[in-house]
């Protein structure tokens, strides 16, 4: 009887866990990867450690984490978003275009002294002239033209670039601000690419 009582929480946990691929799925992958990978250049072994967002999305993939867990992780991501200190959201669209084109940054083969690119074109259509764009993300062509430049729209877009996982927890898009991939000025420049009327995105 006592044993049965002790087992109760375990038994109760079974249906909950069955929604995911298994609680130890991440631990299993991580353990194997730790013995199968080695630090190289700027890519140290700590990159194999998952934060809450990564762990949740991996555990339930290809499905989605349950609402409550997802909401908590999204709130944490939202809390990490920082607006530009000077209140100015828009930089130089030409520099933004260069950042959107640049695919290097954070790979062990990259120079850690050089700023990372955003590699936006890997997944998005942006400038009308650039035909080599990917389709993992939606087209952003005519982005500013269609949406205007209200403060609300600028803040929303800034936040999405800064941390898309505050909006869609398991989005494919990197958290450019929260994870320190792009700095504040670079995000301003990418914002200008999206919103400036002279940018090829809006022409």
């Amino acid at each position: 009887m006592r044993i049965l009582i002790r087992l109760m929480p375990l038994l109760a946990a079974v249906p909950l866990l069955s929604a995911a691929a298994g609680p130890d799925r991440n631990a299993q992958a991580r353990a194997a990867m730790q013995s199968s990978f080695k630090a190289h250049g700027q890519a140290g072994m700590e990159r194999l450690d998952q934060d809450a967002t990564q762990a949740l999305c991996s555990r339930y993939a290809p499905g989605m984490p349950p609402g409550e867990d997802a909401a908590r992780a999204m709130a944490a991501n939202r809390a990490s978003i920082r607006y530009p200190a000077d209140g100015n959201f828009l930089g130089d669209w030409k520099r933004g275009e260069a950042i959107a084109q640049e695919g290097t940054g954070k790979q062990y083969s990259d120079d850690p002294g050089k700023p990372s690119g955003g590699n936006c074109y890997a997944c998005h259509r942006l400038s009308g002239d650039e035909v080599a764009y990917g389709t993992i993300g939606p087209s952003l062509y005519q982005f500013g033209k269609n949406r205007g430049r209200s403060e609300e729209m600028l803040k929303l877009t800034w936040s999405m670039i800064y941390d898309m996982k505050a909006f869609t927890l398991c989005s494919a898009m990197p958290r450019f601000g929260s994870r320190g991939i792009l700095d504040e000025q670079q995000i301003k420049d990418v914002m200008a690419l999206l919103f400036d009327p002279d940018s090829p995105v809006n022409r």
Partner: protein
Amino acid sequence: MKASAKKFGFWLAAAVTAACSFTATLVWAQSAANQDPVAEYRAMFGDDNPAELWLTRGKDLWTAPRGPKHVALANTCDLGMGVGVIAGAYAHLPRYFVDSGRVQDLESRLLTCMVVQQGFKQADLVANRFGDGDRKSDLEALAAYLVDASRGVPISLPLDHPQEKRAYALGEAIFYYRAGTHDFSCATCHSQPDKRIRLQRLPDLATPEGAREAYTTWPAYRVSQGEVRTMEWRLGDCFRQQRLPEMTYGSDAAIALTMFLAKNAEGGELAAPGLKR
């Protein structure tokens, strides 16, 4: 007279055929080039794949006595279907090997054979795992030759050993494991149909169609590198782009992920070495 008419007829037919096929190739190449520059390359080269050179060298490396122990792999190496049997062997890899006590893919199995049977040092072999210009890799040449011996054979992995099942489950866990500065997993790019990165098509590797399309055409001659690359190279370079540390050649993660992809590609007919961008 008769002979020369015949001759003329032959040359006319040949010329017409050539013109037609040239035009057809050109038109096809041009339309294909809009979407896939490698299709254009394939159209130009027809059936000629530079991987032939690797294949020829691989055959020599397989059949000649080599290494400190001066034995031929053809007389000592078991790829899972018996010593020296290569026809169809790649279609049943990765698999569990009793002698090594682990599940192995082609590359890790070759390492075992070359170290245990031929007496090579593992570190030397691994240091030369990827060819670069004049310094060619024996592993890449052997892989090209051995994979070609399974051309047209459907992939079949029964997973009847518990370790093989475990490898598949581990491979799946790794496929969905998000980490690093960019939160990428394999699935971030490879779990949706009809997507592309820049202009490069992305196979959905969790589905049979996508896995077959990808898995059956590796190893491949990479035009951009001028080398034949194997699946382990492909996986390692994906992890580099995922911003993760370096995947170790022949490691458990590499083999498990290969098992996941190969099993998903079950039934697909091997068409490697392929030709890729």
